[in-house]
């Protein structure tokens, strides 16, 4: 186990993976309470799965263009797709489960077809589905770091507005809180963070990072400020720990993150229940 820790000092790719995980998990920790409180877990899942279309286009036609181009192509296609979800959920009842289900399976299916027909490397798909830290480049770290800053600044500058919007959206709108901007802002941040997390967590498993920290925080926090702090702390510490575990046991990184986060959540909830009795 100690060797698994030391590996992070000895190998550059693991060092990059560690920093990438810290930045991505911090961004997810900021967004997670927003997603859980607004009951957007399934929408988050639809968004992450729909990234496969953009990923396939990037992997098929821009395979050697570098991490930044890869990110921008995937982001552009995903933003186009998720703008539909953002529009259909603003001031409307949520689109039906079946509509979201159809939406993400079709975009995912289309991505698979494009990838199978045009991608020069047919074996890379599994890496994007479940995460592969070997793919992380320095440019990915800069992207993740920038998004992390964007999420933190976005939350800190409008913290009271976010709280009012989450807790009482109708009252917030009456009071003049820019609820439309916050709604679309949340979708934009979710898309940016999901696309930047793909190499670490994968399209299938990135949703874990977006849900579990928020569930943990809302189970323990006594105020809104605590909710966001607990979510960020849980997300960063448990994700970094999970990365060490995945390296020690040679698991796919996304799978390791999902399982370790879940186990820690269950242990925490069990401990809370035990102490309450």
């Amino acid at each position, binding site marked *: 186990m100690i060797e698994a820790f030391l590996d992070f000092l000895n190998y550059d790719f693991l060092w990059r993976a560690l920093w990438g995980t810290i930045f991505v998990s911090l961004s997810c920790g900021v967004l997670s309470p927003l997603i859980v409180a607004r009951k957007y877990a399934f929408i988050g899942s639809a968004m992450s799965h729909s990234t496969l279309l953009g990923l396939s286009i990037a992997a098929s036609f821009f395979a050697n263009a570098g991490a930044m181009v890869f990110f921008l192509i995937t982001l552009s296609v995903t933003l186009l797709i998720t703008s539909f979800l953002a529009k259909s959920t603003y001031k409307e009842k949520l689109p039906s489960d079946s509509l979201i289900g159809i939406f993400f399976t079709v975009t995912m299916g289309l991505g698979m077809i494009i990838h199978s027909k045009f991608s020069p490397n047919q074996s890379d798909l599994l890496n994007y589905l479940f995460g592969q830290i070997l793919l992380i480049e320095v440019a990915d770290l800069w992207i993740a770091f920038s998004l992390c800053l964007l999420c933190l600044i976005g939350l800190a500058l409008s913290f009271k507005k976010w709280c009012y919007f989450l*807790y009482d959206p109708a*009252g917030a709108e*009456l009071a003049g809180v820019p609820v439309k901007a916050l709604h679309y802002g949340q979708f934009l941040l979710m898309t940016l963070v999901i696309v930047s997390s793909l190499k670490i967590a994968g399209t299938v498993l990135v949703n874990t990072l977006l849900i579990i920290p928020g569930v943990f925080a809302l189970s323990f926090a*006594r105020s809104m400020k605590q*909710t966001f702090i607990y979510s960020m702390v849980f997300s960063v510490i448990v994700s970094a720990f999970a990365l060490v575990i995945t390296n020690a046991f040679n698991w796919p990184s996304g799978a390791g993150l999902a399982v370790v986060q879940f186990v820690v959540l269950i242990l925490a909830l069990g401990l809370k229940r035990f102490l309450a009795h």
Partner: protein
Amino acid sequence: MRTLLSVQDLHFRYEANERLIEKLELELHEGELLGVIGPNGGGKSTLLKLIVGQLSPIQGQVHLLGNRPLAYLPQNQELNDLLPVSVSDLVEMGLYAQQKNDDSMTALEALKLVEMDNKANHFVSNLSGGERQRVLIAKALIQRPEILIMDEPSKGLDKKSMDQLFTMLKDITRDIGTGIILVDHHIAHVTKISDKILCLGHQTHWHDQPELLDKKVLEHIYDCELELALLSSESKECAHD
């Protein structure tokens, strides 16, 4: 008494051939409680939305003559109970407004007005329906609004909570001079505490003496038979054909 609100020649309809609000005139004064009653679809909530600016009239004007922002408590205000928000945190959310009043109360002062200061640190999710409604009123009052507009605040409350709520509203008009416009289906309570009553139905009626609103008059307004018991205690609207 100072006039806080003046509505002149107000017309509004959703559909072309509909008769909803026509030639409506009203004034609200300092410390006055205006009750609005009438059957479903009579235009009560629509009138409130016109006053707060959520809807624009086809004709006529709404003049807010006060110096401070009005407060509006809409129907079915849904709060997200997943979040750990304390009573005082919720009341302080009332400080966020487009038009701010520098002379706002503290959360505790607002909670004292609705006799909820002893629960300032409780979670809103743990409150009863009546307590929650009181806290929402405290949130509305924190900026010392001159006008408080409420759409069915007694919805879902039991008899005791309802009695406490209506008594408290009357106290607020008397103690801090807030003018209140109250839409509610509980006719007996509304007529008991209101200084004047506006009935919106197939015709618009004004009643400056609520005590004269007897069974016969109310049945004409509601266009159906009302049980006497409903008019004396827990009145509610009769079913419309």
